[in-house]
C-alpha cells in the first residue's frame, strides 16, 4: 500500500534518514519503533508532505507522493495524528471533526450563501457523521464543548476522530498513547483494533513496547536514520541489532548481554521479561 524506496533526508549536513526502505501492506497494523531521535517522526513528515526527501521515492497505492502538497496527500487517502497534539483548540469537538471532512463536502458558493438544500443536506450529514466518529472514540457526549477543555488523552482521541473524518485508507499515528495512563491505553488499544477491523490500514510510531507488540503484525526498527530490522514482533524481539540499539553493548562480554537482553527486550531492562513480552489484552500477537 505504502512504499518508501531508498529514502534519505538531510538537514544541511545532518543526515536524519539514510536509505530507508519500508513496505506497509494493506489491511494491517504496522509499527515503526526506535530510540529517541532515530528519525521516526521525520518519516511521517516525509509521507504527509510536510517535508520533501533529499533522495528516494515514496509511493502510495502506486502513485508517487513527491512534490505533492499536504492537502493533496490527505485527499489521496492518508491521515495522521501528531506526537505534540494539534487539535483546533478554539473550536468545538464537532467542528474539529467536521473540519476534517472539508474535502468531502461539495457545495457551491450559491448553496451556502442562500442556505440551499444541497448545503443543508451535506452539513447535516457532516454533523451526524462527526457525532458517529466521536462516538467511536467515546467523546460524543462532549461534542459541543471546546477542544481546549479536554484532557491530554481525550485530545489525542479527538485527533484520531478528526483524522478518520478525512476518510483515509492509511492512518498514521504518531505516539498515540504518549501521556496516557494504563486504563486509557487499554481503551485506545481496543479502539485501534476496531478501526483496523473497519478496513483502515494503520502505521504507528510508538515507544510503549507492550502496546506495539500487542497490536502490530509487522514492525520496522529505525536507529540513527537507518532501518535495522523489519519483521514480525517475534523476529524483531530476537534481532541482536535491535537489542543492541535499545540496551547498548558491553564490549567485554557482548555475547552475554545479547542473550540476557533477548529475554527482556523490547521492554526496558528493569521490566520483568514476562511482563514486557506478554501480549497485551485484546492484542492480536
Amino acid at each position, binding site marked *: 500500500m505504502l512504499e518508501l524506496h531508498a529514502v534519505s533526508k538531510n538537514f544541511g549536513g545532518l543526515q536524519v534518514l539514510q536509505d530507508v526502505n519500508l513496505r506497509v501492506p494493506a489491511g494491517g497494523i504496522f509499527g515503526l519503533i526506535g530510540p529517541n531521535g532515530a528519525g521516526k517522526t521525520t518519516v511521517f513528515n516525509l509521507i504527509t508532505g510536510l517535508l520533501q526527501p533529499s533522495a528516494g521515492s515514496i509511493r502510495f497505492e502506486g502513485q508517487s507522493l513527491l512534490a505533492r502538497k*499536504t492537502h493533496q496527500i*490527505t*485527499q489521496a487517502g492518508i491521515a495522521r495524528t501528531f506526537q505534540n497534539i494539534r487539535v483546533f483548540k478554539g473550536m468545538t469537538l464537532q467542528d474539529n471533526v*467536521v473540519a476534517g471532512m*472539508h474535502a468531502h463536502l461539495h457545495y457551491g458558493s450559491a448553496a*451556502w450563501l442562500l442556505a440551499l438544500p444541497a*448545503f443543508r443536506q451535506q452539513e447535516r450529514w457532516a454533523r451526524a457523521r462527526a457525532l458517529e466518529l466521536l462516538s467511536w472514540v467515546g467523546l460524543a457526549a462532549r461534542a459541543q464543548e471546546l477542544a481546549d477543555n479536554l484532557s491530554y488523552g481525550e485530545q489525542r482521541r479527538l485527533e484520531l476522530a478528526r*483524522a478518520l473524518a478525512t476518510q483515509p485508507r492509511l492512518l498514521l499515528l504518531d505516539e498515540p498513547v504518549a501521556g496516557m495512563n494504563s486504563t486509557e491505553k487499554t481503551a485506545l488499544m481496543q479502539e485501534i483494533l476496531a478501526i483496523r477491523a473497519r478496513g483502515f490500514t494503520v502505521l504507528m510510531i510508538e515507544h510503549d513496547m507492550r502496546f506495539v507488540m500487542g497490536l502490530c503484525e509487522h514492525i520496522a526498527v529505525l536507529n540513527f536514520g537507518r532501518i535495522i530490522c523489519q519483521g514480525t514482533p517475534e523476529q524483531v524481539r530476537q534481532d541482536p541489532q535491535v537489542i543492541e540499539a535499545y540496551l547498548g553493548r558491553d564490549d567485554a562480554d557482548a555475547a552475554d548481554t545479547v542473550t540476557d537482553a533477548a529475554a527482556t527486550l523490547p521492554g526496558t531492562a528493569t521490566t520483568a521479561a514476562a511482563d514486557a513480552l506478554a501480549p497485551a489484552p485484546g492484542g492480536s500477537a
Partner: protein
Amino acid sequence: MEWLDNFWAVYSNVVLSLGTNVLLALSIYLTLSCGMLAMANAAFMGIGAYTAALLSTHFDAPFALVLAAGMAAPALVALLMGAPTLRLSGVYLAMATLAFGEVVRIAVINSEDLTGGALGLNGIPQLTQWWTMLLALAGTLALLWRLRRARLGRAFEAIKEDETAAGLMGINVSATKLIAFTLGAAIAGLAGALNAHLTFFIGPGEFGFDRGVEILTMAVLGGIQNLLGPTLGALIVTLLPEALRSLRDYRLAVNGMILVLIVLFLPRGLVDPQALRAAWARLTQRKRAG
C-alpha cells in the same frame, strides 16, 4: 420628525463615516479570522476609492458600476500580490503588506496626471446615500454571517488555529488564504468607493499608515471572535472622539487612554463569547451555591 431632520443635518457625516468604518473593520476581520495579520487594507481602500472616483468624475459611469469597479480593482491587486506574499507568516506578512501600502501611497502621489498627486481628487459627486451605505453594510454582514457557517468559514478558522493541521485535513491552505485576502480587499475597496462619494474629495494621505493602524485598532478592540466584535470596535473608534468633544484639547489623549485600557484589560476584545460564557457559568454556579 423635525428632530430627526435636525439630527441628520448635523450628524449625517458621522453616521455615514461610521458605516465606512464598520466595513473597514469587517474587511480586516476577514483576514484576521483566517490567521493573517495583513495591513494592506488602507491601501486597498485607497485603490477602491481612486478607481471609483476616477470612473464617476471622468466617465460619468452609473453608481452601481462604479462601486463594482471599486471592489474589483483592489481584489485584482490582492490576487496578484497575495500569491507571493501570503506564504509569509506573522509579523513578516504585516511588514510586507505595510510596505505595499507605502508603494501604493507613493505611486498615487507621483502619478499626478491621473490621480492629482498630493493634491488629491476634487469634485467627486456625492452619490452615497444613507440607504446605499445601509445596503452595503447589510450585504457584507450577511455574506460574512453565512460564510462562518459554511465549509469555507470553517477552513478559515482551522487555518487560524493551526495551519499545518488544517493542511492535513485536506484544506488547500494557500488557496483559502488567498480567498480571504482577496475578499477582504474587495470589502475595503467598497468602503473606499462609498466614502469617496461621500466626502467630495480624496487625497493620498487618507490611505496611509495611520488609517491602516486605525482599521486594525477597530478589529482588535472589538474582538474577532464573531461579527459583532469588529462592528462594535468601529462604533467605538468612530464615536469616542465625538463623545469626548467637551474635553477639547485633551480629547485625543483621553481617547488614546481609553483604547489602551480596553486592550490591557480585554486582550481578546470587547466581544468575547468564551469569556462571556465563563462569566455566565460562574454566575449561575454562585447562585446555585448560595
